[in-house]
Each structure stands twice: as structure tokens, then as C-alpha cells.
């Protein structure tokens, strides 16, 4: 297993389409002025603390950014609110686009935003029918609980009306709505959902996690991209927001304490092969974090009586890790055209 070198881990990549494997998928962020596009990008991908985003100035030009030192290998492109993203130069970008995000300031009147959004989605759909459309109903931290859902409901129906007027009803099947705020974990949750749709191996990963949970008596497990705290997969049981938040916070604790006491002087990440964390709660639950690859961690939660047999879980974890490596190796071989015969082995252990 140690033969698995760094170079290869870097190639844990995924693309939208085999033919376009050279190019990273693009996630496009749009929305009216001051809707929070830049803040979202900085909080999720650059670890900016939410209160610092107050100082962010209005973005004046199209901002392109590649997500680095992360499992998530895509480009983000942000269009300033005052600029329409559609012209001759951007057509190619929309062809490569995996997800188009439209961010709406829920604390403001969103009539205009909704109109613009319907128009953008329709135009993008004409260029590329595979784009996933994601609506972030943003800044909901300032709204009372019931009006969050009302807003969601209203936007959904207005969008449906507008698009069916243009005869584009089927776009609605690929539009998802998310209630988000940078002040809690909802923005990471929403981005997790967006990213998961771009991962082709998702069903296999979910299946692997299910098998791991069953054989180890684990209640819930997440596959996390450590840097962004986005979960790229979880098992098939429903996600409870509180559990997800706690797992996110556990990553923070692990990374922050490791940065203080376990950073090497050579500037490499404090998240290394031996990275491990275990938190016991009064409610007889244990949270466990294990490093899977340079960028990925498995975080799971289980009853403490089921964590007495650490050896069993350790064993299952190692098999799980091998499984994950195989999934991505198969992928890599497919990409590089090397014939392979072992894809059927993935998930065959039990």
C-alpha cells in the first residue's frame, strides 16, 4: 500500500467526460451584485473566516481560480453581478461547465435576481445540456425559519413558470435549491451536494461506505475533502445536519491542533499518513477520523460499545482504503487507456 506515491494521489481526479479529461470541470458562480459570490468562494475554498468577508470589495472582473491542495479538482469562475456571463468568449467555458451556481440574496428583494437567473439558466442550457443548475438561496441566517421555506417554495414556482413559458420545463429537473449561509455549515453542505454530482464514482463510493459501516457497526460515515470540509460521499443513510456539523468541527480540531503541535519544519501539511483523531462523547458515541490519502479523510461516528474492538475496525478500514484506491486507479487506467481487468474486484471484499 505504501507503493501508492504522492504523484498518483494527485491523480485522484475526475472529469466530466472522458474526452475532456485534460480539462478540469468548471463551476461557474453567478448572481446579482453583493449577493455573496466572492464571500462564498473565500469561505469555502480559502478558509477565510466569515466575519472577515465584510471587508470584501465588490468584484469588478471575471475571477478564475483553481481549487488547490484539495481532492476537489476544479476551476471556479466568478462573474461579477453587473456582467452577463454570455458572450462569444465564454461559450467554450460553458461547454466545459459542470455546474452553474446562481446566488440569490434572500435578505433582499429577489424579483430581479429570479428573472436574471431564469434567463441565465435558459441560455446556458442552449449551450450545454449536461450542466447542473444550482440555486443558492443565500444569507438565510437573517431569516426566520418559516420564511426560509417560503422563499424556497416561491422561487421554485417562479422558476418553473418562467422556464415553461420558454418551453424549457425539463431544465427544472436539473435545478436544485439550497438554503445557505456562510455563518454556519450550510454553505459547506450545499457545496458538498454540488461537488458530489460531478463525481462519477459516487455510487461506488457510497456502496463502499455502506459495506464499511455494516461490517464495522458504524452509524454514519463521511468521506471528507479535508481542506474544504466538503464531503464527497457518504453512506446511504440520511444525513443529519448536526452530525455533519460535528464531523466538520472535528476536522477543524484535528487540523488546528496538528498545525500547532505536529507541523514539520519543511512546510509540508500537518495532515499526514498517521493523522488520526478520536473523540469520545458523553452520549456514548465516538467520532473517529482517519487519513485516507493526502487530501481525503474518513470521518465516522459509532456507539462506543462498538469501538471496543478497535482491531476489527482497523482491519475494515484498511480494506476500505484499498477499495478506494482501486476505484481511483481503475479510473486512472481508463483515462490513460491501459487495459485493465480488475475493475470487477472493487467492492468484492466483505
Amino acid at each position, binding site marked *: 500500500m505504501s507503493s501508492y506515491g504522492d504523484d498518483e494521489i494527485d491523480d485522484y481526479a475526475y472529469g466530466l467526460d472522458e474526452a475532456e479529461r485534460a480539462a478540469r470541470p468548471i463551476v461557474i458562480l453567478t448572481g446579482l451584485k453583493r449577493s455573496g459570490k466572492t464571500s462564498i468562494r473565500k469561505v469555502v475554498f480559502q478558509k477565510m473566516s466569515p466575519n472577515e468577508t465584510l471587508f470584501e470589495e465588490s468584484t469588478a472582473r471575471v475571477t478564475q481560480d483553481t481549487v488547490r491542495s484539495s481532492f476537489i479538482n476544479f476551476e471556479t469562475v466568478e462573474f461579477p453581478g453587473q456582467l452577463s456571463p454570455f458572450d462569444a468568449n465564454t461559450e467554450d467555458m460553458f461547454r466545459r461547465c459542470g455546474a452553474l451556481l446562481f446566488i440569490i440574496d434572500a435578505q433582499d428583494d429577489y424579483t430581479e435576481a429570479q428573472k436574471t437567473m431564469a434567463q441565465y439558466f435558459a441560455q446556458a442550457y442552449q449551450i450545454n445540456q449536461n450542466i447542473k443548475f444550482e440555486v443558492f438561496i443565500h444569507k438565510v441566517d437573517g431569516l426566520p425559519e418559516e420564511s426560509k421555506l417560503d422563499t424556497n417554495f416561491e422561487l421554485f414556482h417562479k422558476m418553473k413558470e418562467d422556464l415553461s413559458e420558454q418551453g424549457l420545463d425539463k431544465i427544472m429537473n436539473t435545478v436544485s435549491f439550497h438554503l445557505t449561509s456562510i455563518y454556519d455549515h450550510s454553505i459547506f453542505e450545499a457545496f458538498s451536494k454540488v461537488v458530489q454530482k460531478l463525481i462519477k464514482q459516487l455510487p461506488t463510493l457510497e456502496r463502499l461506505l455502506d459495506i464499511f459501516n455494516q461490517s464495522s457497526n458504524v452509524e454514519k460515515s463521511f468521506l471528507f475533502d479535508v481542506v474544504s470540509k466538503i464531503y464527497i460521499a457518504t453512506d446511504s443513510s440520511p444525513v443529519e445536519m448536526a452530525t455533519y456539523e460535528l464531523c466538520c468541527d472535528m476536522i477543524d480540531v484535528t487540523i488546528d491542533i496538528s498545525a*500547532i*503541535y505536529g507541523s514539520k519544519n519543511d512546510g509540508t501539511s500537518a495532515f499526514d499518513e498517521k493523522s488520526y483523531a478520536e473523540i*469520545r462523547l458523553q452520549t456514548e458515541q465516538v467520532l473517529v477520523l482517519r487519513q485516507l490519502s493526502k487530501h481525503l479523510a474518513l470521518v465516522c461516528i459509532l456507539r462506543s460499545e462498538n469501538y471496543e474492538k478497535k482491531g476489527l475496525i482497523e482491519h475494515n478500514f484498511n480494506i476500505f482504503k484499498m477499495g478506494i484506491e482501486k476505484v481511483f486507479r481503475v479510473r486512472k487506467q481508463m483515462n490513460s487507456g491501459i487495459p485493465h481487468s480488475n475493475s470487477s474486484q472493487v467492492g468484492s471484499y466483505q
Partner: protein
Amino acid sequence: MSKRKVLLMGKSGSGKTSMRSIIFANYIARDTSRLGPTIEVEHAHVRFLGNLVLHLWDCGGQETFMENYLQNQKDQIFKNVQVLIYVFDVESREIERDYRYYQSCLESLLANSPNAKVFCLIHKMDLIQEDHRDQTFDEKKRDILRLSEAGAGGKDKASEVVQCFKSSIWDETLYKAWSAIVYKLIPNVHAIEAKLANFTEVVEASEVLLFERATFLVIAHAEVSEQNKDVHRFEKVSNIIKQFKLSCSKMGSQFEQVQVKNDQFAAFIEAFTPNTFIMVVLAGPGSASVSATTILMNIRLARKHFERLEEAGAA
């Protein structure tokens, strides 16, 4: 049971109640925006380290109240004070007036409680651009120490009585300031430190921290060598653990034990005495393979010694 009277003063809106709520009432920084202005004096009794009770006088800072404190209520307010915490808003537009009130308060304090210690917090530092923070703080600190000379009776005296800290509720600086404050208030802190140093040696740890259970302020520490360590690590750890504690309570739970390891270190945080948490850090390659059971057993064995020490401190 020992009681300590702590005055919290400064102009209205400088952030006194906000920081008190974060440190002692488990508020998260963002929620402090809901707090209204304090009217006259709000009293809060905070049980700290179980047997030590901090009697916080949160003095509303509006001018009429200030005049009152300095005149009619002078004796009542400034008698028997152990610590005065004076909060300055770094962005204040009326800095001259702030300074004038500070001087009057200091004078009244030292006249009524000559042994009191003073902590000046230059607060809301997050509003200053990061690269200007040190410079701004140094300037303010110099001003405050100069203004304290008259009240304290001389330059040396001033720097002995008055300590300045920069703080912001948005980062760990708040914990640094408050750790320094409570350190001054714990009766047998030196005995605790000595015992902790002994424990550190026995378990061959590179560092051991002792946290107060409710606030997660570091009250004592022992370390083997200073080298390669982040000087802000105590307050950072306080902040990290406190945040995590708040996330646990959202789930209706609380953590009992935390272990974090990588190739270079292993850290164990565990509920210790009824009033404290302990953190044991082992450093160096290979420490990740040290048996967790051994460390945890050692922690359990040390527990009763520290419990006794706490009881002695209360007597």
C-alpha cells in the same frame, strides 16, 4: 470559598458585556450582536475552578453612569476590588474622553483598593488591518501607561499595576487576555504549576496544559522545552476546544476525551478534576505509536493529587 471582585469598565459599546458573555456564558461571537447596552451595574457571579467565585461587576459605560460611579457610588464601586478590567474601543472617536475617564477610575480604584491589578484591553482589534495591529497596539499601550503614571504613582509603579492586552472577540486574543487575568486570581496557582511540572516529567510529555472546565482558559502549563513552539498556542488551543465544546452542545452532548495524532505528535485532552480539563502533548517522531491506554492511565492516577490541591486552595 473565596470571592474575587472584578470590575469591568470602559465606555458604552466598547464590548464589555460581549466578552463576558463569550468567556463565561458560552456565547459565540456572532450572537453577541443581540446584546443590548448594560444599564448601571450588572452583577454576575461566576464559579471558576469550582471553589473560586468571581464576582463580576459589569459597569454600564454611558456617561451618566460613569459620573455616578466616580462620585456618589465611589466607595461602593471601588472598594475591595481585586482586578479592574478596563476596555478601550480601538476605533473610539472620543479617545480623549475615554482616557480622562480611565484616569479618574484608576485614581479612585487605587485610593480605595491599593492592591488591585489593572488590565487594559485594547478591544475590537479586528477592525484594524492586520499589518497595522501591532503598531496601533503599541501606540495605545504607550499612551495608557503614560496616563497611568499619575494615578499609580510613578512610571515603574504604573507598569507594575497596569498590563495591556490587545483583544478581539473574533480570534484567540480574547483568551490570551482573560487567561492572564484569571491567572492573577487563582489562589494556589504556583502549587498547581509545580505539581504539573512534576507530572509532565513523569509521563515524559513535552507539554501539559490545565484548562478551567467551564471557560477553557489555560490556568497552568508545564513544558519541557520552548523550542519550535507557537507562542500563541495556549489561547489558540483554548479557542479551538471551546468552539468544539459549543458544537457538541448543539448536539446535546459534551466531549469527554479527545485524541489527535499525526506522524510528529500525539495529544490527549481529557476531563480531569471536577473543575479542570487536562491536555498532554507528546512530541517527536514515533509519539503517535505511544499507547493511549498508558497515557490515559497516568492521567487518571494523577487526578486525585490535583483534586486534593484544589480542595486545599479552597480552604
